[in-house]
Structure formats: C-alpha cells, structure tokens
C-alpha cells in the first residue's frame, strides 16, 4: 500500500460492479476479495447505500466485520459515498434543513466508524447548510468532497456558490470530487446502442444529441425531449432510455477542471467504455488527467464504470483497462 503519495493514485469504486452485486453474484466480502485478487485496488470507494445494509447507521458489530474484510483483502477504504437525500417525498416540499443536516451527520459517523478517510456528498445539500456541517466533519476528522457531477462543471453557478462558501469557511475538510461525466465530449456510442436496442429510433437520438448540447438542468432537458418526442409516437421507455444521457453526462470544456484542482480531494474517473488500445469512448482523458498531475493532485482517482446503467459488459475488464489508461497518461 502506498503511504507516501508522490502523484495521483488509482483505485476503484465498487459502484463499477453494480450488475455483479445486484444479481447476487458477489457478497460484499467476496466482491472485495475479487477486486483485491485482480489487483484493482488497494484504494476503494464504496457507496454507503449500495453495499452496506445498515446504512445510514452502521452498528459496531458490522464495523468490526468490515474492518476484518479490509484486513483480509488489504484494501484501503478511501472514500464512502454518502447521499444528500433532500427530496424524500416526491411532489412535496424538500425535508427541513435540520433533518437534512442530521441525515448527513448520521452518514458521516458511519463512514468514520468504517474507517474511510473522506466522504462524497452532493449538491442537493443547500450551500447555506455547510457552516453547520463542516465543524462536525472537522470534529470527526473526516473530509467531505462535493461531487461535481453532470450537469455541474467548474463554471456552473452552483459550483461557484460552493466555491465562495469554501473560501469563507477556509477549511481543509471541504473540497471537490470531480466526476468527468460533466465534461463529456459526446454521448457514448454504447449508450446510444443500448437505446436503439430498446427501440429508440434515429430521429429521437438525433434530437437527443441536439438537446444534450443545450443549456439547462437535466430534468429540464429531459422535459424538452419528452415534449418533442411524445407527440411523435416515441414510447415512454424509448424516451427514458434516451434521457439517461441528460442525467449522467454533460458537454463542457475538459480543460475547465483546472479551476478546481487545488481543492480536489478525490476523483470519480467516470467512464463508459475503454477500448483495447486504452481510449475512453466519450471522455477526453488525455486532456483531463494531466491537469491534475501537473496541478499537484496526490489523492485517488477511482475508476467508475457506469455502463451498467444500460448494458452488461464485463465490469472487471473495463476497470482494468481504465486503470491501464490512467497509467499510460500519468506515466506511473
């Protein structure tokens, strides 16, 4: 295990193996063992609400079991992804601020108890609540990185508002977690193929590509496509398959990440398909990754394969290629 970081580290989020986990091919301990056996660690991220049955409140007993799994596999628990679940009643008002703060504290306690060194949180947490939560993270000694995920990017107003609050609070416990889906160069062909397999017609996909390049929040763009497509007879499932792209990818300048490097504490290496010659189909890693190395980033980029949202390729092979691509670009 690397203890003195001299450059960016690689790792993997178990989210990449969503298909394998949901189909019960692996338990948490056997999945961790497989990751270790294939040499895809040691640095890992785990989504609390995916792999931990007891989340958001984990027991001492489970924490002991998890630490034993770490000891058995040699994996390093870098990041625990927590969720900013503010909209617990669809169609109704978001939950009260105090309840949302407590919801974050519960997850922070659990992440700390399980041995993680940082958490991923989300923009669904209103920025004005950060002054209430940051001191708690400091007290627990666990860092928090907000995930800059599509449709957000470095130039998005929400990111700028967070940046201003970060400047004001001025604590090393708060930072960014870039997710490269925010600066995709195109919609992955594998995703379009999956939509075609569900029956989506070419005119729907052409319109998708057009609306995808427009400004707006994900659900606004999904609404625009739906309004165009429904009267033309495209089915709800075809439209939904197309709309997935709005929620996980947006088209912004790959170089824009440079503005966030200084406060980046961790990275989601989002990807959809890395070819045998080590090139990702939709995200320009050759432009993005040098920004972080040159900017002095020494944290971990976890490989985050998200093709499972629409197909069933071999996630382990995809992650292997993604990490090999990172080594090719970073030269380590």
């Amino acid at each position, binding site marked *: 295990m690397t203890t003195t970081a001299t450059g960016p580290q690689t790792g993997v989020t178990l989210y990449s193996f969503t298909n394998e986990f949901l189909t019960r091919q692996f338990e948490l301990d056997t999945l961790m063992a497989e990751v270790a056996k294939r040499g895809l660690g040691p640095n890992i991220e785990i989504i609390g609400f995916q792999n931990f049955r007891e989340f958001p409140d984990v027991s001492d007993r489970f924490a002991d079991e998890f630490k034993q799994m770490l000891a058995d596999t040699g994996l390093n628990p870098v990041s625990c992804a927590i969720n900013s679940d503010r909209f617990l*009643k669809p169609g109704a008002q978001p939950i009260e601020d105090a309840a949302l703060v407590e919801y974050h504290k519960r997850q922070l306690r659990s992440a700390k108890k399980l041995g993680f060194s940082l958490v991923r949180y989300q923009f669904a947490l209103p920025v004005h609540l950060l002054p209430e939560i940051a001191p708690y993270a400091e007290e627990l000694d666990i860092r928090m990185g907000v995930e800059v995920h599509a449709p957000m990017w470095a130039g998005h107003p929400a990111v700028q508002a967070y940046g201003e609050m970060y400047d004001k609070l001025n604590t090393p416990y708060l930072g960014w977690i870039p997710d490269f889906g925010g600066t995709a160069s195109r919609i992955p062909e594998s995703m379009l193929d999956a939509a075609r397999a569900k029956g989506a017609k070419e005119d729907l996909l052409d319109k998708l590509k057009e609306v995808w390049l427009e400004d707006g929040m994900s659900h606004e763009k999904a609404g625009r496509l739906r309004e165009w497509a429904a009267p033309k007879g495209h089915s709800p499932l075809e439209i*939904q398959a197309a709309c997935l792209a709005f929620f996980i990818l947006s088209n912004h300048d790959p170089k824009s990440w440079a503005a966030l490097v200084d406060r980046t504490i961790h990275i989601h290496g989002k990807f959809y398909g890395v070819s045998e010659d080590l090139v990702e189909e939709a995200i320009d890693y050759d432009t993005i990754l040098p920004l972080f190395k040159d900017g002095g980033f020494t944290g971990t980029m976890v490989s985050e394969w998200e093709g499972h949202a629409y197909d069933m390729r071999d996630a382990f092979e995809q992650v292997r290629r993604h990490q090999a691509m990172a080594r090719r670009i970073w030269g380590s």
Partner: protein
Amino acid sequence: MLPVERVIGEEGLAATAGGLKLAMRLPWYRSLPFSVVEVGPLSIDGEAVDLSDALIEYNGEQWPLSQNGEKVDTFWFIRDSAFLVLPSLKADAGSAHEVSLNLFISPPYIPGMRRTNPQTSTLIVEAA
C-alpha cells in the same frame, strides 16, 4: 433486462394464508427509502389488480401500501426483495400467471427524475 431495471423479484409469486405474495426488486443501483417508490399498476393475466388493500412486507415488517409515501426512514436494501401482499387474491400452487408490474422511483437527490420500470413475467405460484 438490466439488474437496475427489473422489478419482479427472484422469489416470484406465492400463495399464502394472507393472500397472494409477489416478490419485488428495487430498480435502482442503491438502497432508497420506500417513500420514493410508487408501486403499481399491477395486472395479473391481463386484469388490473385493485391495490387498495395491498400491503408491503419487508424485513419482518408489514404496512399498508397506502402508507408507503410516509416511509422516509425505512430503507429498501438494494439486494433484497420486498413483497407486495394481496389479501383478496388467491391462486393455486403450481398454476402459471402472467404478471405485469410497474414501479416508479424518484431518486431523492436528483430533482425532477421519475423513472418508469415496467416488467412482465410468467410466474408459477409457489406454495408458502
């Protein structure tokens, strides 16, 4: 069907003393509170099923489907089946039925997203 899309659980359909019981899987990649899951419509052999007396059974607990929207702190673990109990329905063990179920989910951290997840399967009724 993708693992993140399926809604009919591996345990299928069972005849129990309390009525028919249908296994359901959560069509998402992470656990969610039951409050963001809308169950139904459901049809069996092409006929719409009235869900007004239906119950949800999960992890040793049972509650009326009509109260599902209040379950903001009961999490459906992504690996587990939850069960839809239909007290008014009966079926013979061993008989085959075409079941069509939809679950709508609204992930609580993604404003404005509501996903439809229709699935149809022919299930053989198990004796419980």
